[in-house]
């Protein structure tokens, strides 16, 4: 099971700036190991986020997103204490969901 995400949701006016770090290899499928064998692709394909349960973000990613990905976006209409939940799903079907409180 993947390590938890690190999520920060910082209130600026009526918006929350959300910064997310995800622990993931983001393997492209185009690299070879030392024995010359292709290392299979393994990367996050979908990222979603909700604010107090309401969907706010939906993204599709390819293997060109860097290893241990970083994502930043601004959620409108946020206030202190709101709950931000971020989920990802990779091409092997593994998922991870973590949350943070807007502060």
């Amino acid at each position: 099971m993947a390590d938890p995400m690190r999520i920060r949701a910082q209130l600026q006016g009526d918006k929350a700036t959300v910064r997310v770090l995800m622990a993931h290899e983001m393997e492209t499928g185009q690299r070879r190991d030392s024995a010359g064998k292709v290392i299979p692709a393994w990367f996050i394909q979908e990222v979603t986020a909700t604010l107090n349960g309401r969907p706010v973000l939906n993204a599709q990613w390819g293997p060109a997103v860097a290893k241990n990905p970083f994502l930043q976006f601004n959620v409108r209409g946020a206030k202190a204490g709101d709950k931000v939940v971020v989920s990802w799903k990779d091409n092997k079907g593994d998922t991870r969901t973590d949350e943070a409180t807007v502060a």
Partner: protein
Amino acid sequence: MSHPIPALLLAAALAAGSVHAQTPAPAAAGAAKTDPLAEYRRLLEEGNPAELFEARGERLWTQKRGPRSASLERCDLGQGPGVVKGAFVTLPRWFEDAGKVMDLEARLVWCMEKLQGFDGAEIAKQPFDRGEMANVVALATWVAAMSRGMRFDLPQKHPQEKLMYEVGKRAFFFRGGTHDFSCASCHGVAGQRIRMQDLPLLTTNPGDGVGFAAWPAYRVSAGQMWGMQWRLNDCFRQQRFPYPGFASDVTVALSTYMGVNAKGAMSIAPAVKR
């Protein structure tokens, strides 16, 4: 300390090799202001993946693990059992119970062996990114983070600590390998760079958050979290030296030398690096 020799040698080389005036290389002292990489580095700092390893290290510290199913919460990093804050900026130091000077990673392995029942020798043999060794790196990342903003102040009271400093100084200037490199080849003169990477002068305090005060660090080029043991290991690889043992005398002595020299420097570890 007197002026490190490479400065004199470089001056001599310039004088001897100069038929016509050399085009002056850009002075790195002024480079910081116009550094074209400043924006790149600033953007990386907005989200340092070292945080992922820091969080893992914190979980590993409290988790009951190993043959004895124990946590590391009683581990003594030099400030008393279980005291983590402030420990990083005093390491390497002498440990009476072990009868030797240890750096952070050696001490963590010691605790994993004594408290959790792991085989320290087995851990020491593993590559840095595998198995329990990867856990040591994560633990070191968290322990370092707990001293973020604090200033280095290594003890130099015990004769072994002084001895390690002296051994480290000699190791720092030791030239060998197919390319005749020493640590001082890259870190013996202020204001130089390899490619576009600034090289800290490590014979003195290079400043807050520079050199010894920046590691462990997340290397974006490799997508890996490196502790000081890994950093030194890869320095020796690039020096074309043979392989330094994990927590071998040379590595602990070099950290003692750099850490003592860095007295007063503020730690920013874990940092993010190219």
